[in-house]
C-alpha cells in the first residue's frame, strides 16, 4: 500500500478491472492474474482480442503466461532490476510522455544539496544510521521544504513502530507544499535528472546478468510496453503478492509507479496500476482495518510519544496545508463522533484519549514472535489459518502453545484450532497435548450466504450480499460475534466504572438486532460507516460534508456515499449502466472508478485524445464532466492557481491531478514516508544464491528485519552450499489460501488433491526425482515432501554463467480436510519488509532431495543433519 500511496496518494488499485479492456498493453508481473483473479481476467482477454499486447513476467510459465503474448522468465527476487531496466529504457529512448511528466509529476522539483543518492554511496541513501538500522529522511526533502520537527522520536511517517499503512501518502516529514521547480528538467538536482542517474546502470545487459532475461526478450517487452503510452495509448500494470511479499516489496511497486508516471498512464482509461488484492474483502479489511497502525479510512493510529499527547498535536502532525488531507481533522473528528458519540466533545478532545497508542511492533509477525516468547495471553483468530498460511509454520504452531487462551472462528475445524492435538509438532513429539495449557475455543462461523454484509474487492468496490439462509446450529456471523462480545464487555464495564474502562463505557454500541439469535442489522452498521449529519439526522452523501465541529459523524470517510439516504444502499445496487460498472456497487471514493482521473485530460482540461477521452473540463458549464465521477474539485478550472490560504484542493493548481499530495503531483521521487528510500534500489532477497550485482556492499535491503533467531534461522547469503536452489511459493486457482475453505469441499479438493512441487526436467535429472514421485524440499526452517510435477515451464535463469534452478510450491495444504499434505509455509522464514512488515515468500533458497521424508521425529533428525553439513 505505501508503494502506491506515496507515489500517487492512495494505497489501492487506481482503476477498475473493466478498464483493462481499454488498454493497449498490459504488464502482469508479481501476479498470475488468470489464476488468482479469473473473473477480472476476462477484461485482459477482451483487451487482448482487440489488439492489446499482454506481457507476463514470472519465474514460472503459469496459466497467465499461457494467455499472454509475451512471457518473460524472471529470476525470483530480481523485479527491481527488471523494472529499473524498463525505466532506464524509457528515459534513455525518450519514450516518456513529456507533457504529462512535466505537469503532473514532481519531475521538475529540485532536491536539497545534501541529498546523496544510493548510486553515489554504494547502495545507501543519505541519512542512514547504521546503529539503529534506519534512515532519517531529512536530507531527502524537497529543497525549500521545512522539515516537520516537533514531537516524536522520528520523522512523521518514519516511526520505528509504524506499519507503513498510515495514510500512506508520504511527504509528512516536511512541508511538501514548499518547493522549487525547473520546468525544463535540466537542473542537475531536479528529480528527473536524479532519476536518470539513479537508474543509469539498470541497462539491458544488467537485466540479462541479474534477472536471467535474454537481452532481446527484455527489449521486446520494453518496446511493446513503452509504445502503449502518449495521448492516444495507455498501458496498465497488474501486480499482486508476487511483488508485495518481498523484503523490497514496497519499492518494487514504487518502480512500477515511476514507470506509469513517466509513461503518463495514471488516471486514464486502460492505464493505471491494478493492485490485485486477494480475498473477497481484503480491500475492506484495510479500509475498515484489522491492521494495528491505522484507523478506518487510512488515518494513523496515534503512536505512544509526543505525537499523540494532545489531539491538536496529532492533527498538526498528520494534516497538510494543501490537498485533500487538509480535511484530516474533519475526517478524524467525525470518526471519533461515530465511535464515542456524546462522549466525544470538543472539551474531551473528541475522545482522542480513548484510543489506544501504538507502543511497538504490534504487526501480526511482531506479536506472534512475542507470543512465541510467552508474552501474549490470548488471541482471537477469525477467518484466518496461520498454522498453515503464515511463514515459519513450526514457529507459528509452537507459539500458540504459549497462549493462555485462543479463540478460533471458522467454518470448519482448521489446523489452527486443532494444533494442540494433531499438528506435525505433536506427531514429531516436539509438543505433547497434555503439556499444552492453552484453552482453545472453536466458534462456528456463518458462511457468506448466511449473513448480510459487504465485500470490498480489489478495485475498491463495495458489494452488498444479502442473507439467503439462516446459519446452521450455533454458527454466527462476525457482526453478531463482535457486537455481542462488545455488548457483554460494555455491560461489565458499566458495572466497574474505572479509568481503564472509560473507553469501553464511552463507546457507542447500540445496534438494533433482529431474528431468533439477535443478529445485528448490518445496514445500520453501514449507515454508521457512511456517516450522518448529527444536527438533522440525515445520512451524508459525500465526505466533503464532514465537519470538524462535532456536527457530523462517519465511521469511515472514504465510504461516505455508499448509503446516501435511508432507502438506498448503493453497494446493493445491481444495474450497471456503463462499461465501468456505475450502477453496480459503490467504489470509494464517491463511486469513482478510475482515480486521479483529472490526469485523463491535458493541463488545459481538454481530453488527451478522442480515443482516450474520459474526464474533461466543460468550459460552458464550468465544471468537470465525463465518464466517471471526477476525482478533483468539480468546479475548479484547469487554469486555477493554488491558493494556500484556502487549504484543501484549492491549495493545489488546477492542472495537478493527485489531490492527496500537497503539491498535487504524482511522485517519481518520494521525499519521505518510505523507510527504505525515496527511490527503488535493487537488493537481493534475504536469502539468495546470488550476489547483489548492483550494490555488492549491501546484499539485502538494509532496513529490512530478518528477525533472525534460533527458531527462525536463515541460510547464509549468497552461496550457502546446503541450499543452492531458489524457492518460490504461490497460489492455485483451485484452492483458497490456507485451504480451510477449499480442502473441506469435495469439488475443489478433487481438482488439486495433492501438494506438488514444480521443477524443470533438468533439475529432476540432477536430483534423481521421477515424475509424480515424492520429493523433499528443505530450508533452514523445515523440510516437507510433495509430489513432483516435472515440467518445462520451469526454466532455470542463467546468472553469470551459472544455472540457478528454481523450485515452485503452492502452499494450500495442511493436515486437515478431505485432501491433506505437508504445510509448505513451514519452509519460509518470518521476516519483515521495512515499511509494512510483510514476510518474504516469493524468493528464498532451498534444496531438493528425491524421496519422501520419514514420519515422526526422524524428519527433524534428517533436517538437523542437513543443516549441520558443510557449514
Amino acid at each position: 500500500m505505501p508503494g502506491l500511496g506515496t507515489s500517487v496518494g492512495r494505497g489501492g488499485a487506481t482503476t477498475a478491472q473493466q478498464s483493462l479492456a481499454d488498454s493497449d498493453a498490459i504488464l502482469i508481473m508479481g501476479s498470475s492474474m488468470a489464476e488468482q483473479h479469473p473473473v477480472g481476467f476476462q477484461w485482459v482477454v477482451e483487451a487482448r482480442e482487440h489488439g492489446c499486447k499482454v506481457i507476463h513476467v514470472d519465474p514460472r510459465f503459469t496459466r497467465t503466461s499461457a494467455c499472454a503474448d509475451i512471457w518473460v522468465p524472471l529470476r525470483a527476487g530480481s523485479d527491481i532490476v527488471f523494472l529499473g531496466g524498463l525505466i532506464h529504457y524509457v528515459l534513455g529512448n525518450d519514450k516518456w510522455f513529456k507533457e504529462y511528466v512535466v505537469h503532473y509529476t514532481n519531475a521538475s522539483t529540485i532536491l536539497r544539496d545534501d541529498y546523496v543518492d544510493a548510486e553515489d554511496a554504494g547502495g545507501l541513501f543519505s541519512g542512514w544510521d547504521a546503529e539503529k538500522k534506519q534512515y532519517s529522511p531529512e536530507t531527502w526533502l524537497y529543497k525549500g521544504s521545512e522539515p516537520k520537527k516537533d514531537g516524536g522520536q522520528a520523522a512523521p511517517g518514519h516511526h520505528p513502530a509504524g506499519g507503513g499503512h498510515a495514510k500512506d501518502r508520504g511527504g509528512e516529514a516536511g512541508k511538501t507544499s514548499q518547493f522549487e521547480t525547473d520546468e525544463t528538467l535540466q537542473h542537475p538536482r531536479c528529480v528527473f535528472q536524479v532519476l536518470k542517474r539513479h537508474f543509469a546502470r539498470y541497462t539491458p545487459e544488467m537485466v540479462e546478468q541479474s534477472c536471467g532475461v535474454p537481452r532481446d526478450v527484455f527489449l521486446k517487452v520494453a518496446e511493446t510496453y513503452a509504445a502503449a503510452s502518449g495521448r492516444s495509448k495507455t498501458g496498465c500494470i497488474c501486480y499482486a503478492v508476487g511483488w508485495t511479499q518481498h523484503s523490497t516489496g514496497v519499492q518494487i511497486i514504487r518502480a512500477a509507479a515511476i514507470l506509469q508516471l513517466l509513461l503518463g498512464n495514471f488516471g486514464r482509461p486502460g492505464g493505471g496500476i491494478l493492485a490485485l488484492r486477494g480475498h473477497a474483502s481484503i480491500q475492506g479489511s484495510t479500509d475498515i482495518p484489522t491492521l494495528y497502525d491505522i484507523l478506518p479510512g487510512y488515518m494513523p493510529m496515534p503512536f505512544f510519544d509526543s505525537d499523540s499527547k494532545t489531539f491538536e498535536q496529532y492533527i498538526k502532525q498528520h494534516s497538510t496545508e494543501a490537498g485533500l488531507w487538509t480535511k484530516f481533522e474533519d475526517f478524524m473528528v467525525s470518526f471519533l463522533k461515530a465511535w464515542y458519540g456524546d462522549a466525544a466533545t470538543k472539551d474531551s478532545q473528541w475522545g482522542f484519549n480513548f484510543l489506544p497508542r501504538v507502543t511497538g511492533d504490534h504487526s501480526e509477525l511482531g506479536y506472534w514472535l512475542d507470543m512465541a516468547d510467552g508474552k501474549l495471553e490470548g488471541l482471537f483468530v477469525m477467518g484466518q489459518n496461520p498454522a498453515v498460511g503464515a511463514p515459519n509454520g513450526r514457529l507459528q504452531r509452537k507459539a500458540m502453545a504459549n497462549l493462555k487462551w485462543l479463540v478460533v472462528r471458522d467454518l470448519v475445524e482448521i489446523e489452527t484450532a486443532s494444533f494442540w492435538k494433531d499438528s506435525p509438532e505433536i506427531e514429531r513429539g516436539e509438543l505433547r497435548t497434555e503439556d499444552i495449557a492453552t484453552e482453545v475455543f472453536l466458534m462456528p462461523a456463518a458462511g457468506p450466504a448466511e449473513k448480510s454484509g459487504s465485500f470490498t474487492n480489489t478495485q475498491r468496490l463495495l458489494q452488498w450480499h444479502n442473507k439467503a439462509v439462516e446459519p446452521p446450529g450455533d454458527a454466527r456471523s462476525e457482526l453478531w460475534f463482535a457486537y455481542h462480545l462488545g455488548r457483554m464487555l460494555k455491560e461489565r464495564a458499566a458495572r466497574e466504572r474505572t479509568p481503564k474502562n472509560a473507553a469501553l463505557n464511552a463507546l457507542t454500541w447500540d445496534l438494533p438486532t433482529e431474528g431468533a439469535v439477535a443478529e445485528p442489522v448490518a445496514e445500520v452498521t453501514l449507515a454508521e460507516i457512511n456517516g450522518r449529519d448529527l444536527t438533522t439526522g440525515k445520512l451524508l452523501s459525500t465526505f466533503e460534508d464532514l465537519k470538524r465541529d462535532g456536527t457530523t459523524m462517519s465511521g469511515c470517510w472514504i465510504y461516505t456515499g455508499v448509503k446516501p439516504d435511508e432507502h438506498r444502499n448503493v453497494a446493493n445496487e445491481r444495474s450497471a449502466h456503463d462499461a465501468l460498472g456505475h450502477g453496480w456497487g459503490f467504489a470509494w471514493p464517491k463511486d469513482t472508478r478510475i482515480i486521479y482521473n483529472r490526469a485523463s485530460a491535458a493541463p488545459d482540461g481538454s481530453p488527451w485524445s478522442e480515443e482516450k477521452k474520459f474526464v474533461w473540463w466543460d468550459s460552458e458549464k464550468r465544471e468537470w464532466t465525463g465518464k466517471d465521477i471526477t476525482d478533483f474539485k468539480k468546479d475548479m478550472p484547469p487554469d486555477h492557481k493554488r491558493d494556500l490560504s484556502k487549504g484543501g484542493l484549492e491549495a493545489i493548481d488546477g492542472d495537478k491531478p493527485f489531490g492527496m499530495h500537497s503539491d498535487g503531483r504524482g511522485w517519481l521521487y518520494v521525499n519521505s514516508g518510505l523507510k527504505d528510500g525515496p527511490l527503488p534500489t535493487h537488493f537481493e532477497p534475504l536469502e539468495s544464491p546470488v550476489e547483489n550485482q548492483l550494490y555488492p556492499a549491501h546484499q539485502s535491503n538494509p532496513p529490512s528485519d530478518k528477525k533472525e533467531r534460533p527458531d527462525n534461522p536463515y541460510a547464509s547469503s549468497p552461496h550457502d552450499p546446503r541450499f543452492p536452489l531458489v524457492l518460490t511459493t504461490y497460489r492455485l486457482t483451485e484452492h483458497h489460501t490456507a485451504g480451510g475453505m477449499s480442502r473441506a469441499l469435495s469439488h475443489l479438493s478433487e481438482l488439486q488433491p495433492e501438494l506438488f512441487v514444480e521443477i524443470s526436467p533438468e533439475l529432476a535429472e540432477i536430483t534423481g526425482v521421477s515424475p509424480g514421485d515424492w520429493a523433499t524440499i528443505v530450508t533452514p526452517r523445515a523440510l516437507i515432501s510433495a509430489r513432483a510435477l516435472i515440467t518445462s515451464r520451469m526454466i532455470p535463469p542463467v546468472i553469470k554463467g551459472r544455472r540457478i534452478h528454481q523450485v515452485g510450491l503452492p502452499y494450500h495444504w495442511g493436515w486437515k480436510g478431505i485432501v491433506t499434505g505437508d504445510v509448505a509455509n513451514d519452509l519460509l522464514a518470518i521476516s519483515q519488509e521495512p515499511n509494512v512488515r510483510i514476510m518474504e515468500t516469493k524468493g528464498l533458497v532451498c534444496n531438493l532431495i528425491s524421496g519422501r521424508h520419514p514420519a515422526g521425529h526422524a524428519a527433524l533428525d534428517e533436517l538437523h543433519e542437513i543443516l549441520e553439513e558443510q557449514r
Partner: protein
Amino acid sequence: MSEAESSFRENRLDEIRREASQFGTVQQPGIRAAGSPLPKASPQTGYYQQHLLKEPQWTPLVPLYFFVGGASGSLGVIGSLADLLGDNDELARKARHMATAGSAISSVLLIADLGRPSRFLNMLRIFKPQSAMSIGSWVLSGFSAFAAASTLADILDRQVDGSPIATFLRTVGRTGCTVLGMPFHNYTGVLIGATAIPLWNNRVRSLPREFGMSGLQSAVSLLELVGETDSNALNALGLVAAAFETWEGLDLLRTHDRELAPTKEGFTGALIQTAGLLSGPLPIALRVASLFASRRKRRLRQAAAISGIIGSLCLRYGWVAAGTVSARNWKIPLNIPDAADVQLQES
C-alpha cells in the same frame, strides 16, 4: 488425513511401482517408473496415453448369458423341428424343456446384470430396431413366451390326449421358437459387433456367425450330456458347427489387423485361442472318431460335448474380456500407428 487414508495412498503407490517393474508400463495415472519419458499430450501420444473409449461395464453374468442364450435359441429350433422330421420325440422334448429353462435363466442373468434390476421392464417401454439391445430384449421376451407355450403344450399332452388348447399352444409355441430362435441364438454377436469397441466392430460380420454356431454346438452338446449320444443327427450338427468354428478360428489367425491383437495376445488371447481349439478341431476329431468306434461312441461324444461347452464358454468370456482390452488401446481410436512407440523411445 486419517491413518487409514494415508496407508491406502501408500499402498496405491506401491501397487503402481510394482506394476511398473513387472510390466514395464503403468496403465493408471500417477507415478511413472524412473527414467520413463514424462507424461505427455501430443499427436504421437494422444492425451497422456489415456484411452479415450470407455470400457464395457458388464458383469461376468453377461458372457454367461451369451452362452445360455445361444444354446437356448438353438435348442428351441431343434426342439421345434426334430420330432417333425424323424422319431426324435424324446430328444425334441428334452430340447424344448431345456430351451424353456434356458430362456428363464437368460432372463435372470440379464436382469441381475442391470445396474437397476428392478427396472428391467423398462426394456419393454419401446422397440428400437436400430438397437440390438432393444431387439434382443423383445426377442428374449418373445422366445421365452413361445418356449413356455411349447413346454406347456408338452405337459398338457401328457395329461390329456388331443386337447385343442395343447394343439394351439404347440403350434404357436413351435413356430414362435423356430422363428425367434433364429435371432435369439446369434443376435448377441450383433450386439457386441455394432459398438464403438474397435475389436468388436472389426469382426462385426463374423461375430454373429461365430456366436450362432457356437450356440448350436452348445445345444448339441447339452442334449448329448443328457443322454442323446445316439443321435447321428446331433453328431452331424456338432460336426457342422465345429467345422465352421475351425474355419472362423483360422480366418481370425490369418487376419493381421492390429485391432485383433487382444484375440491373440495376453490372457484374453489365450482364452480365445483355447476356445477355438475346444470348439473346433478337438470336437471334430472326437466326433469323427465316434463314427468309427461304436463301443466308445457315448464317451467320445460326451467328451466332444464337454469340449464344445467349455469352448463355447471360453469363446464368450474371451471375446467380452478382449473388448475391455481393446477399449484400453489408446492408439486405435486416434489412428496413431504403432510405429509411434519407436519414435517415442528415440526422442
